[in-house]
């Protein structure tokens, strides 16, 4: 194995060696959300006809886990390597900025999708779930994981300290995922917050992903696909530019 494949393999091996923390822990967290919210709200909230609240919640939790863990993988790997100094092994290598991008984002997608699959496997027993339009499930899972992997790359390059990284995660990633309609349909929000939600690209990822399960969504899956693909393109272009210019890497 050589070139970007080596870096990809190293990045996958890195999280896999501590999979109890990087895969099992987020699966448990998602299950707790499901048990608590599902139990409390099952009889009080109806989003789509014939879809119980717990069923509605499962795809949202799966997608939230995919997004958060894809982000966590590239961002934490980079910041750790920067702070401990072992990024030098990569910096002195002949790998191109494209190789870095493909490897870091690819490994982030593997982590995000592994956790997402884990969440699906443990939650699917709690409520009936269909796969009405499965291709949307696949498309939005892949694009969402890719976008958050690239966003994590940008955060990892930008942050110089762990608290800066925590700020990025707590003040940007967490609010955007929680306000993306994971726990509710945006149609249940007041008009202003409905409009605000439509500015959040994470909303389209969750909505498009859920469409694959229920065949129903808040907006057209094609609109979601356009927004998500455009977001991925913008974030990737920024990440590639930062890598090419050696932003905060090559002084």
């Amino acid at each position, binding site marked *: 194995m050589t070139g970007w494949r080596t870096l990809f393999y190293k990045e996958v091996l890195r999280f896999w060696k501590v999979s109890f923390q990087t895969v099992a822990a987020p699966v448990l967290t998602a299950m707790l959300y499901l048990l608590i919210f599902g139990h409390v709200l099952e009889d009080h909230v109806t989003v789509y006809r014939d879809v119980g609240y717990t069923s509605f919640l499962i795809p949202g939790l799966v997608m939230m886990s995919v997004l958060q863990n894809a982000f966590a993988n590239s961002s934490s790997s980079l910041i750790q390597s920067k702070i401990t100094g072992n990024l030098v092994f990569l910096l*002195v290598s002949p790998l191109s900025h494209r190789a870095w991008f493909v490897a870091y984002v690819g490994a982030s997608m593997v982590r995000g999708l592994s956790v997402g699959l884990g969440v699906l496997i443990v939650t699917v027993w709690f409520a009936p779930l269909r796969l009405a339009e499965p291709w949307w499930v696949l498309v939005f899972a892949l694009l969402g994981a890719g976008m958050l992997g690239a966003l994590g790359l940008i955060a990892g390059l930008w942050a110089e300290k762990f608290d800066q990284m925590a700020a990025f995660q707590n003040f940007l990633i967490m609010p955007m995922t929680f306000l993306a309609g994971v726990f509710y349909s945006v149609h249940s929000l007041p008009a202003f917050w409905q409009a605000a939600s439509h500015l959040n690209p994470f909303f389209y990822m969750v909505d498009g992903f859920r469409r694959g399960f229920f065949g129903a969504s808040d907006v057209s899956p094609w609109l979601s696909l356009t927004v998500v693909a455009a977001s991925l393109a913008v974030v990737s272009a920024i990440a590639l530019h930062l890598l090419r210019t050696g932003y905060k890497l090559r002084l």
Partner: protein
Amino acid sequence: MLAAIRFDDVSKAFRGTRGSVQALAGVSFDIETGEFFGLLGPNGAGKTTLISILAGLAKASSGRVSVLGHDVVADYAAARRALGIVPQELVFDPFFTVREALRIQSGYFGVRDNDAWIGELLDGLGLGDKAGANMRQLSGGMKRRVLVAQALVHKPPVIVLDEPTAGVDVELRQTLWQFVSRLNKQGHTVLLTTHYLEEAEALCGRIAMLKQGRVVALDRTSNLLAGTASTMLRFKTDDALPAAVAAQARVTGRIVQVRAHDAAEVETVLQRLRVAGVRIEDLEIGRADLEDVFLEIMHGKPRGVGAVA
């Protein structure tokens, strides 16, 4: 002949909160293929900045650097393949074992099926029984050996060691120098920065000295020593030294050290001691430390640069 490393008018300014700091100011010199070259200078002279620009860890403000003719910016992939860097900091990736770290590093450089050479490196550096150990479990000296192995894993023709023996035990220093000397004899070019000047004297054919971002001396190690008071006279005495000798002597308790340029000057000193009736014991005549030469050059004028540049 194609230079192994060429620094061509390299300058570097770091912009900080208190204005700009000029780390390098127009550094130019070549290191020929097969040389064992020493880069010396006090802390803050710009040695590590120069190495960082060579390795692609930093960008020069102006000027060019090439490795075997490959520009380190425009043709970075070829330049980095030709280069093996042992970094100054003791860094490691805590997720992997020694063998995993070396296999990963091989992969970055596009080297397939490298286990035979990895085995050779592990044995040569005394790491044979640590191959399966996690990096976290190794002592500082062992981690340093792994750093050397990582730098050599792609068999680079040009090897750069940035103060590799700082804080390292005697055994490792010897293992390391035997290993690097063997590589040099096999044709590898070696660039070494070090604070241990006796190392540079013993190993390096040529030396460049940096001071405040400029080359202040560049010559063969033997020439640098020849042009200075490089002979050292050491003896013990309880008597007072004559004024003429005392003026050029360094006295530590009973031990007296006098530096001289040549044999005639040694003879003059001994004669003055005889005339003054000074009784001396344990007389030794040896080479002066490169450190003394270094200090003399650092406090004096640039030398040797014009002739070579």
